[in-house]
């Protein structure tokens, strides 16, 4: 049970609304779990239950073998948490605030000073240490929030939308920071930016209407996309209808879609049966018929499409 969180049958209602409905999953050390879902799907509620802010109606949260409900303080010691929007005490300075965090995390004296220096360097806060947090830019505020979360080098890191509202450079910095910590920690982060999942996550979970609807590596999720392994082919010359029929007749081809057609250039998308690879078949056909190829590319599948289809209940085709 070392280095993991285990969530079992978590449920939470707010009045008549079921916010989280029977969610179970486990995350191991070294994994960065991306928590995806539309707004209001229950991501933040789940994270609030994992960090012990909310008490679940039923279900258990086990962190490194300890049940959160039975030993809340012990479990909270091992978690670093960045709540949504990174709330901070606006009157305090980053120096004062991190000092408070240090002391509440049990650091004193020399150890505290060393840890403060390390953390401040890690998130580049040196230049604003003595300005009130309320006057800082969004990027700096987020860094203070991150510093607070990683201060005690926790085994488990829960980050609720860590890059929300940051500019592309700041996003990149935060992602690099997360990636650098990934190896020795269990990291769960929520986001609705799909590129972020590809950039930092080793696994992704999609949650919709409080239910877990998808769980896999980003590549596996992409494979669920309708366009996964489809081949896009642009041909110059030739009769469009004839070519389409010929493509459709190839083995392993499920359907052919004409994407665009102008002058004598026609772009087709060829969908495979059961997501199999079509490249060899098609390139062979191209050679045999000596088609004039302008473009040939394979679709990896699109996360946003998978995301949309599993979170809106749109029929899924594979």
């Amino acid at each position, binding site marked *: 049970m070392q280095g993991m969180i285990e969530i079992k049958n978590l449920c939470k209602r*707010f009045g008549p609304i079921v916010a989280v409905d029977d969610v179970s999953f486990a995350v191991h050390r070294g994994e960065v779990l991306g928590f995806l879902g539309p707004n209001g799907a229950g991501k933040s509620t789940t994270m*609030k239950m994992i*960090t*012990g*802010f*909310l008490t679940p109606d039923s279900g258990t949260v086990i962190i490194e073998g300890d049940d959160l409900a039975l030993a*809340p*303080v*012990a479990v*909270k*010691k091992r*978690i670093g*948490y960045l*709540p*949504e*929007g990174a*709330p*901070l*005490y*606006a*009157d*305090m300075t980053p120096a*004062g605030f991190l000092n*408070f*965090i240090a*002391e*509440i*995390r*049990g650091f004193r004296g020399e150890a505290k000073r060393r840890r403060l220096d390390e953390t401040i360097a890690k998130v580049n806060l040196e230049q604003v240490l003595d300005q*009130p947090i309320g006057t800082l830019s969004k990027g700096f505020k987020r860094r203070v929030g991150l510093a*607070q979360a990683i201060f005690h080098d926790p085994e488990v890191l829960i980050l609720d939308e860590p890059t929300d509202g940051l500019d592309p450079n700041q996003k990149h910095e935060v992602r690099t920071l997360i990636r650098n910590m990934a190896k020795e920690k269990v990291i769960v982060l929520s986001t609705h930016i799909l590129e972020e999942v590809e950039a930092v996550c080793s696994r992704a979970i999609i949650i919709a209407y409080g239910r877990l609807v998808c769980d896999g590596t980003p590549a596996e999720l992409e494979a669920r996309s309708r366009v996964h392994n489809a081949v896009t082919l642009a041909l110059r010359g030739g009769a469009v209808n004839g070519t389409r029929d010929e493509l459709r007749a190839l083995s392993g081809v499920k359907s052919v879609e004409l994407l665009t057609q102008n002058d004598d250039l026609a772009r087709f998308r060829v969908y495979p049966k059961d997501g199999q690879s079509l490249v060899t078949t098609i390139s062979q056909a191209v050679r045999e018929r000596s088609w004039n190829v302008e473009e040939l590319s394979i679709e990896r599948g699109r996360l946003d499409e998978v995301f949309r289809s599993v979170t809106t209940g749109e029929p899924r085709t594979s």
Partner: protein
Amino acid sequence: MANIWVVFKRELTSYFMTPIAYVFIVIFLFLSGIFTFYLGNFFGRGQADLEPFFSFHPWLYLFLIPALAMRLWAEERRGGTIELLLTLPIAMPQAVLGKYLAAWAFTGIALALTFPIWLTANYLGEPDNGVVVAGYVGSFLMAGAFLAIGSCVSCLTRNQVIAFVVTAVVCLIFVLSGYPLVLDFFSSWAPRFLVETISSFSFLSHFNAITKGVIDLRDLIYFASLIAFWLFANAILIEMKKAD
């Protein structure tokens, strides 16, 4: 204990990071001076004691303490920092106590800064300093009771104005319950023991008893249990309603 101290320190310094501390202290000193010297007729009554000073404290606290207490939890709620605070490795009672004690210590500082009045009384005459000390103890305890009520009410809302008004009203009830205004309403129909119970809940009767110079264990228990009750309710209510 260590955690209470850490929360206490953060909270107390945050008063002095904002104008709250200075505004509160200045207004408190100014008003207590006005009340003592003008309404209380400190000089004219020709007695070397601080009775006119202390007798206005319940009324002064009635609007100043809710102003101090309203932010205790309502602000954490509004700013979302309650989520930060309660996911740190501290137990709920430690958070409640740390914040409460900081606010109480702050009123203690404000109260201590009224020492010139005590110096004046000593310069002009020979007051019974034992009674003066008892007065300060009583006033401090009463401030603590007001604050405990305010802390509890403050945790129920994210709106500081609501916290202020509700706290002031609850405190007013506690102050007035020894007054004929309230007691007459009950005495016509309620049994005598009930009227006496209501009367015994009054801040005034206990506070006045202490400021007379008699620190009775019963009065101390009254304030201590009142504070304990409201803080206990505070901890329970936050636990229940922290996510709302």
